[in-house]
């Protein structure tokens, strides 16, 4: 009963309290380097702090009492499984294996824990015989019999709970106040698939999944270097989510890593369901439409970022990996820019930047020109537009708002709609945003084209979260263009530029290679220079670690 009280009390307690040593939580942390399968590394790994339990209750020597306490903590949850067994290695002593169904690999438990224990007598009778103390004999069991990747002794009730929650199989022994946690994390996960949101034509077609273990592995498989460092921690009082900070030692600026680490450590929240939770805590500025952290579902893009001196944050349960620090122009770079030839890559990059500004400004420009600056149009175009507007009941600003909002609604509906009704939305959308609206006399044909082109332009940018900035600022621009014409557009633009100039991402100015101007970095900003000429990494990388390759044109190439 005391255990239950502890658990309840701790939920209200602040996490800032001292972290008591809970060995079992090391079960997951250690797996990155658990390739050896040697059980002896249990104490070496520093366990990631769970950060929610303040107390430590020792386990009792009674198996029944321990099992009861654990069950009470779980309020007799149905997925907590307990299997009583006995082992030849410990004759006459009852054992119990506990695990949470669904987050463990039951097959692995059977093969690596249960079967070896039951067969232990026959396998190694000599080593387990004798009158050693029970504790030593359990230690022997842990080291020699249980064959999962990682095992660890557990001495507290809280440790036992954590071990169970992280997917370990907990072995209780009658008469011992020490349990053994054997790592057996498993359960159903999604297979590595193709990217769905950030697609490329040429290049790797892997995408991150929800499993952090897989995701880190995907990155590791690209960067086979010991300089790739993974720092894991657990964030979330209830979800206890594994959050890993990845960086390339020697390439990344140590100050940036220190800052990222500090920001991650400062996070104290209830739950982490997606990397978006983490992003909102570690970004530099919340009140801006511009993202200061990049997210990617592509291992190759994450690897490229790491190699350019960014750090990555992998959050368990999210197929989107965060990259930081990022600058404004980083959002216009598609991983494909580096896979395609440099000429088309440069052209496409310019198109993207242009499309971004078009998607931000086009409706505002249309409003401003047609209601304030008609003299800017060629005469024939003016007459054409004027003819279209005959009979349109609304001012251009209202017309534009009507159409833009219609499109936003359609777009949102398209995302939320069950897939089965999907085709309906395109039919309705074509009607609402098409000639039907024109023929009904609600809007002019030119406005339909403007809205459609704006919408298309918005999807050109490879990073959807910077496109959102354009989407939001567009409405601001439209209003100010409707009130002040070009003067309004320019004033909003000035505000945006001033705002951008004041943004930082982990201490790096947001407009970096442009303002402040960085010599040499323009090779990979608006255009992409040939690969062999990109000798140095971006300036965010560590000083002295920026040289990528010896450089120079390949000898065979002439002219």
């Amino acid at each position, binding site marked *: 009963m005391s255990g239950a009280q502890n658990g309840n009390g701790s939920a209200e307690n602040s996490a800032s309290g001292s972290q008591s040593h809970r060995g079992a939580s090391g079960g997951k942390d250690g797996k990155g380097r658990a390739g050896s399968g040697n059980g002896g590394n249990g104490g070496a790994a520093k366990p990631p702090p769970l950060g929610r339990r303040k107390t430590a209750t020792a386990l009792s020597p009674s198996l029944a009492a321990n099992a009861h306490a654990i069950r009470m903590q779980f309020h007799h949850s149905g997925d907590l499984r307990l299997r009583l067994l006995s082992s030849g290695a410990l004759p006459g002593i009852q054992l119990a294996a506990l695990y949470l169904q669904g987050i463990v690999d039951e097959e692995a438990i059977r093969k690596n824990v249960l079967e070896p224990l039951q067969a232990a007598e026959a396998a190694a009778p000599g080593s387990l015989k004798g009158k050693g103390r029970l504790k030593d004999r359990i230690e022997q069991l842990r080291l020699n019999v249980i064959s999962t990747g990682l095992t660890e002794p557990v001495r507290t009730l809280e440790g036992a709970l954590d071990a169970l929650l992280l997917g370990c199989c907990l072995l209780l022994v009658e008469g011992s106040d020490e349990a053994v946690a054997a790592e057996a994390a498993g359960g159903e996960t999604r297979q590595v698939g193709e990217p769905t949101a950030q697609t490329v034509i040429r290049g790797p077609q892997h995408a991150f999944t929800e499993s952090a273990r897989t995701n880190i592995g995907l990155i590791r498989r690209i960067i086979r270097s010991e300089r790739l460092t993974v720092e894991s921690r657990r964030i979330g009082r209830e979800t206890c989510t594994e959050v890993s900070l990845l960086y390339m030692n020697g390439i990344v600026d140590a100050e940036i890593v220190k800052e990222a680490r500090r920001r991650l450590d400062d996070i104290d929240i209830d739950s982490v369901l997606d990397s978006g939770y983490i992003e909102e805590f570690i970004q530099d500025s919340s009140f801006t439409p511009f993202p200061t952290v990049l997210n990617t579902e592509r291992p190759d893009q994450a690897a490229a970022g790491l190699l350019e001196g960014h750090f990555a944050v992998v959050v368990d349960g999210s197929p989107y990996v965060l990259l930081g620090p990022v600058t404004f122009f980083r959002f216009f770079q598609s991983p494909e820019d580096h896979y395609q030839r440099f000429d088309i890559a440069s052209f496409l990059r310019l198109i993207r930047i242009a499309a971004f500004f078009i998607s931000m400004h086009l409706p505002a420009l249309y409003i401003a020109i047609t209601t304030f600056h008609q003299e800017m149009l060629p005469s*024939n175009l003016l007459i054409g537009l*004027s003819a279209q507007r005959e009979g349109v009941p609304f001012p251009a600003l209202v017309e534009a708002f009507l159409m833009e909002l219609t499109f936003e609604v359609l777009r949102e509906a398209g995302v939320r709609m069950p897939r089965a009704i999907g085709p309906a939305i395109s039919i309705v959308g074509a009607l609402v945003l098409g000639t039907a609206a024109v023929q009904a006399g609600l809007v002019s044909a030119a406005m339909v084209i403007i809205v459609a082109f704006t919408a298309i332009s918005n999807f050109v940018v490879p990073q959807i979260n910077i496109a959102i900035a354009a989407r939001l600022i567009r409405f601001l621009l439209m209003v100010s263009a409707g009130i002040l014409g070009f003067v309004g557009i320019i004033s909003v633009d000035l505000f945006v530029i001033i705002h951008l100039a004041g943004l930082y991402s982990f201490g790096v100015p947001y407009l970096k290679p442009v303002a402040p101007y960085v010599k040499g970095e323009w090779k990979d900003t608006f255009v992409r220079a040939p690969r062999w000429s990109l000798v140095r990494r971006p300036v965010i990388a560590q000083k002295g670690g920026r040289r990528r390759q010896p450089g120079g044109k390949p000898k065979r190439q002439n002219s």
Partner: protein
Amino acid sequence: MSRGIIRRWALLLAAALLFLPLAGCWDRKELNELGIIAATGIDVTEEGKWKISYQLVIPSAISSQNGFTSTTESPVNVFSTEGESVRGAVSRATQEMSRSLYFGHNQVVVIGERAARKGIGGLLDVYLRNGNSRETVMVFVTEGEARPILEQLLPMERISGNALTRLIALEKESGGNFRPQTVYSMLLQLLGPLHASAAPGIAINGSGEGVRSVDANKSTSTPSKVRLQKLALFRDDHMIGWIRTHESRGLLWLRSEVSGTTISFPCREGGPKVNSARITGLKTKMKPARSGDGWLLQADVEADATLFEYTCGGNLHDPAAVAGIERMLGQQVRSDIEDGLQASQRLKADVAGIGEAVRRKYPHTWKGIAAEWNSRFYPEMKAEIGVHVGLIKTGRSNRSYEQASEDSRERK
């Protein structure tokens, strides 16, 4: 959230809201509130009032939503207002027009002869003073009234006002008899040291009535056409007279403002002008000099020519024949220049800008003669014009057809 921060944000919001009444909302004009004017006509009535005519574009008649243009509706509407002053007349338009007149796309102003002779100072002032009318509008002068020109429909063109600008631009490029004159350049010349300018004349030629109805487009020929002809000369702010088309061309040559023109020339002096060539790259160097009491203009004209049509005898393999053609071309150019010069001297308006050359060369003397240049010195000025035309292309045959036919007969 301290009170100070709230206060600051509230102040910022208030400041932003203050922008709204400050803003240019009153400049806001939806496209369907505009009456787009394509051309303006300026006349003076019998009572001496200004009569301004407008060519109002009817967009729906020109560009239809469904991709075809209506042929039954007139693309433009012409109406006039009268007033004591130019803008006074324009402001009367609100009494009969449901839309506000929009001059931003007005490209042509046609001035009736009577209005031009009365003086266009008021009109020019309107263009200088107001931001909503462009100084780049093209000026035409017409004998008689300006309004019929605006009413005239041009074949193939929906908006005749725009068509007039294309007409004169093409004339400058290929015809070489006139050049576009904008209000701006006219102002430059009239307010410059010479106080003289010119504007191309425009008239309705043809037998019948003016083409005022779209029904006229149903027949293959129109009874009348708009045509560029003659040049109106202005001194100070009023028109002083007309000179003829080829005289206008001569003056343009003197100013090196011709990009290409086709001229006819005879085989020998005094003969019929049966050959033609295109003059390009014409360049004139004007050297004014004192000659006794008066002035002498020495002008050197250099030009290239391409032979278009040649019916004389001789073979163009022979350099002497080529030199003969060049001489004939030179004579034609010289006579046009001389005619133009004499005509402008007769009207006492130095529109060729010779005074400008005098002013540059003799700045001190110019101060003394500037006031009397147009009235006294310019009309009495002598001119020595040397022309050299180089024939750079003779085309793909050397002999004329006549020569070739004669040669073939001899061979028999």
